[in-house]
Structures are given as C-alpha cells and as structure tokens.
C-alpha cells in the first residue's frame, strides 16, 4: 500500500509538474508575443504629441503657460492653431530645443506639462498627503460633532503648535505628544475621517486659521484644568473655547 501511495504521489507530482511546465511555457509564449508587439516606451511617449490641429484641455494648459510666460497673447482656447505654433517655436528657440513647433516629450518637459494622462507626483507630494490624512484623523477624532469652522480651528491649532517654539516641529510630533489630544489616548484618532474632516484639514493646511494662532482649546462644560480655564479665550466656536 505504502509503495502504491508513493507511486500515486509521484504520479501526482509528475502530473502537477507537467501542468506547471505547460503553464510556464504558455505564459512565456504570451509574454514573448506581447513584448514583440508592444511598442517601446519611447515610442509611446513620442506618439503622444501636441501639434497644429490638436485640441483639448492639454492644449489649453500649454497655452495658459505660454501666455503667462509672454510667448503668446490672447486667451487659451484649447485649439492648437498657427499662433500657438509660432509661440511654441519661439519657446523652443529660447530654450535650446529643436524648433519644430511640435510639443513632444522634451518640449513638454521644459514646459512642465505631462503628455500622458498620469499626473506627475514626487516623494514630497506623498508627504503632504500624509499630513492631510493625519490632520483629518485628528479633526474627526476630536471635533466631528462641531461646526465646520470649529473643525478647521482644531486643525489650525495643530498647525499653530507646529509653528510654535513651545511644541514639537512636525504634525506627527504635535499630534502624538504625550497627553496632547484625547483622541490619541482613547483611540478615536484611528476612526476613518469623513469628507468634512478632510476638507477642514485641507483648509487649515491652505492657511485658514479662524483662531489667529491659538495653541489650546477646551470644552468649558467638561474642562477641569485651572491653568487652562485661567487663559484668555480668544474665540468660541461650538463647544470649544480657543486660547
């Protein structure tokens, strides 16, 4: 019996091996065919160009830039006509590019526009998204029941602390400072923020600060700290006093 089982197992392994080998061969074939017929990445980029006759949002973006830089006059209408072509040629001449009036990869790069639909990002961009995300979590955890401006104000207090010499100098440093925010102690910071909280955090990051530099806030109905209650209240919104 044992031998039989082993034989069976060996047969099974063989079958499996044959199947895997067949699959690998098919996959390799498909991959090979795809690679043969797939145009190179350079070709893809070169294929997407803007030239006379092109229309659309991308043309408009390019025209807006050319107008701003003084190469083109008038308004950005999204149509690549002879005037736009002349402006592109002027731009290319002044920037040491081949002056053919066609916006290919190099000209687009010099203009700071992306010809592919993908938006350009950088490592620092993900950092700003992280800031927004963390700030939105604090807003939701601390003030989701508050009026919208009260939510912006809470986010602004976090950012004011970052700017203040008396607190840590990063958003995470301020948020996770021991005892600084209740939502960190009770875990509510881990709740998923809603759109309002995200918008409020974004407003604060964009500079809106209804508190004009406040570093603290408290709920006068529940606060017990004498020190906190003795501070001059600069603004009251919803359930929070800001100081």
């Amino acid at each position, binding site marked *: 019996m044992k031998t039989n089982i082993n034989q069976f197992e060996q047969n099974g392994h063989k079958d499996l091996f044959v199947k895997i080998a067949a699959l690998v061969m098919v996959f390799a074939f498909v991959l090979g065919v795809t690679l043969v017929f797939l145009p190179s990445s350079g070709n893809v980029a070169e294929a997407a160009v803007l030239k006379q006759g092109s229309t659309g949002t991308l043309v408009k973006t390019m025209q807006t830039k050319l107008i701003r830089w003084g190469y083109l006059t008038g308004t950005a209408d999204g149509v690549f006509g002879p005037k736009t072509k002349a402006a592109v040629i002027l731009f290319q001449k002044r920037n*040491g590019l081949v002056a053919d009036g066609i916006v290919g990869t190099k000209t687009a790069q010099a203009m700071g526009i992306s010809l592919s639909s993908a938006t350009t*990002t950088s490592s620092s961009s993900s950092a700003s998204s992280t800031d927004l995300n963390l700030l939105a979590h604090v807003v939701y955890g601390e003030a989701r029941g508050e009026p919208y401006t009260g939510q912006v104000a809470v986010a602004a207090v976090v950012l004011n602390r970052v700017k203040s010499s008396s607190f840590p100098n990063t958003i995470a440093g301020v948020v996770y400072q*021991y005892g600084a925010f209740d939502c960190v102690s009770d875990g509510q910071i881990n709740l998923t923020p809603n759109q309002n909280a995200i918008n409020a955090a*974004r407003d604060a990051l964009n500079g809106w600060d209804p508190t004009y530099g406040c570093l603290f806030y408290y709920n006068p109905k529940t606060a017990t700290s004498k020190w906190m209650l003795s501070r001059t209240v600069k603004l009251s919104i919803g359930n929070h006093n800001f100081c």
Partner: protein
Amino acid sequence: MENTNQKPKKSKKQNAGKWIAGVTMGLMASAVVGLSVALYYSTEQVSTHETYQRQMEAVYSRAYYDLLSGASDLGTNLRKLSISSTPTMQQSLLYEVWSAAELAENNLGVFDAEDEGMRAAQKFVNQLGDYSHSLALKVADGEKLTKEDRAKLRKMGELADVYKDAINKVSGSLKKGGTFAGDNSVLDEFASAFNEFAEPSIDYPEMIYDGPFSDALEERTPVALQGEEMTEEQARMQLLIYLKDRDVQNIEYAGEGEGDIKCFNYTFTLDGDRAFAQIGKFGGALVLLNAMGGGDAVSVAHVEAGETCQTAALDFAKRLGFENMQVVWSCSCHGECVVNLAPIEKDTILYSDLVKVKVRERDSKVIGVDATHYAFNHKKRNLSSPKITAQEAAKMLSISPVGEGRLALIPLRGNREVLTYEFECESDGTYFVYIDAMTGKEANILYVISDENTGQRAI
C-alpha cells in the same frame, strides 16, 4: 408485587443518583477546563501587557538617555563657541548646536505636553536651535558674530546647564528601580523637574533674531487694520454688503475674537451652506470667510475652472477693498480652487501680503477668504530700486529660466522682506528661484509638488 414494584423504584433512584453524579462530574470537568482556559488566556494577556509596557519603557528610556547626552553636547558646544574666533569653526559649532537642539526637541515631544515646565523647556531648545541656525546663516553670509550674539550664546550655555540638571533630576529615582511606564511611574517627576524653566524668575534672554521662533513674532500688530472702531451692528451691515448678491440666511453674531486681530465673528448660511466670517473691529475689513461648499469628489477640468475662478476671486477681492491685486498662484482640488492674490506696487509683487480666495468650481462662487497675511503685513512700502537688472540676475541661475524674471518682495526667515527677481525654471519639475535684486545672491528656491489630495503647491 411489592418487591417487584420496589425494585424498579430503587433502580430509578440509583439511575437518578448516577445521573446527578454524572452531571456534577461533567460540570466540574467543564469548570476545570473553563478555568484552565481562562487562566491560560489571562496569563497570555498579562504577558502581552508586560511586553507592551516593556516596549513603552524602551521608547521612553531611549528618549530620556538621548536627551541626557544631547544636553551635555549643547553645553559643551556653546562653551566652545564663546571662545571660537574663525567663521569656519563657528559655523561648524553652530550647526552642531542646531542639530543637537533638533534632536532634543524630538525627544522632549515624547513626554507630557500639558506640563508648563516641559513647554518652557521645549521653547528653550527650539529657540536655541533656531537661533544657532540663524547665526550659522549669518556667518555663512560673511557677517561676524557680534558682542551681543556672543553674550546671548553664553547665556544660552548657562541655561543649557540648568536644562541638563533638570533632565538629570530623575536619575536618582531611575537608579532605585523607578520606570517611566507602569505603576509608580517617574513621568510626573520628570516633567516637574523643568518647573524652573517656567518660573518668571529665570533670567531668560529676549530672543529677537531672524527666525520662525523669534520672540518678535509672538505678538504681532495687524498694520493693515487701522480704520475706525466699529460697532457690532455696523460690522454685520458691512458683512452683508460684502455678500450683497449672495443668499445669506440666519446670520448670528458669534462673539468677539480677542486674538492679535480684534474682530467680530458671525455664523450664517451662504447659498445654503454653513459659513463663518470675521470682520475686523477696526476698519471693517473681511479678514476671514469660510463656508463648506466645495467638497465635490472630483474637480472639473482645471484649466477652464481655473480661469473663471481666478476672475471671480479678483472681482471679490476688489469688492472687499483689496486694490491692485494680481493672481500669483491657483490650485484646484476636490471641486474647490484656491486662488492666491498679491498686491502689486511699483511693478513688484508683494508676496508677504497674500490674500487667499477659495472659489467653488461648480458655479465660480467665492466660499472662502483668508486675508490674515494682508492684515498683518500690508502697508505702504517705499521700495528701493533694484541694483541689478533682471538679465544680470538671470545669469546667477544654474539653468535658463522660462520667460522673463519679475520683481517680487518675498518674506524670509522671521519677519524679513527681500526685494528679488522671481524666475520660473523647468528641469524635471517646476522651480521658482528668487535672486536678491540688490546683491544677486539666491534668496530662496521653491519647488512645485502635485498631489491629488492637496493640489499643486510650491514649497
């Protein structure tokens, strides 16, 4: 019959007894199993709790011992600085102090935020680092350390000793087996050691220098809000005039703002959305407006929306009394376009006096204004004429700019302002380079980042 009748009774009793015994045994066995399981899990939990506590202790201890060794470095380097005579050595030591202060700031952040002494200690290390950084920049620029600078550095060195002693105070308890995490924690003792920093008796020098943590920035005057004092009713009327063609309902007075900018606060609905506005008590300017009104998940095509939003922002700014404004930046994100406007004086963009206007892309209606920078900074400036031309300034760039340079007054560290030429450059991304229009030196460089959640920003 009796016997025959009794026998089954006895066997029933016996059966019942066996049954009860069986059930009892079963229950006892279950109890033993249950207790064993509970004991096992509680032991597990205690062990997990202890693991977490040990990990927390490790985090606190690392921060504490880094603080202690960093404090020694601060004092030593400040002493060396007080006798150093060459710029290279001074610069090197100043950078050492700056980096030690940054490390200290990070580690202090691990401890109690609500303790006043801790906050004062945090302020000390932040200002010391910032001040050293500012002096290092000054030395790099060819300037010499003044007598006052040296005196201030010596004073900061003395304070570094006080700071080090404060950190050391808890070491006695730690030697006796005290821990930061868990029962009988020394956290409170550690925090209270810094009380001396919060005492008014401490001889703390006034730290006025070119840096973001300078004392000069703590109390600011809104120089642009110097008009006549208004009553609450007048301010409310003024707000309604600013929003005259908009649907404003349920306007309510929400108290007075007592910060650096004295203002009247109002809540209301603007086109059906809840909104908040602040009207300056002196002069009646709209300092801040904010409504929830965008928030559309996807922004409409940026370029089309951008142009109409910019026009709407400029029109609204004009209505608010902000004259000669120009669009300097606009950023579109989640259905809202934030347009940055700056005043122009003598063909120069005044970046310090920015007014931000938030426009809803759907209908190009203004839903937010932030005129704080304008309120604090805008004044009639007697701008000097540049000493170099835009062409000369362009020669200082490492890559050729796109378009011509333009004059811009930009804010720098602290509350300094510098007249510069602004150049836009493209090289694997967009840069804005600012060349000092007097000296030809690079004053600042901004790099544009794009992000779907925060839009395009120059940082």
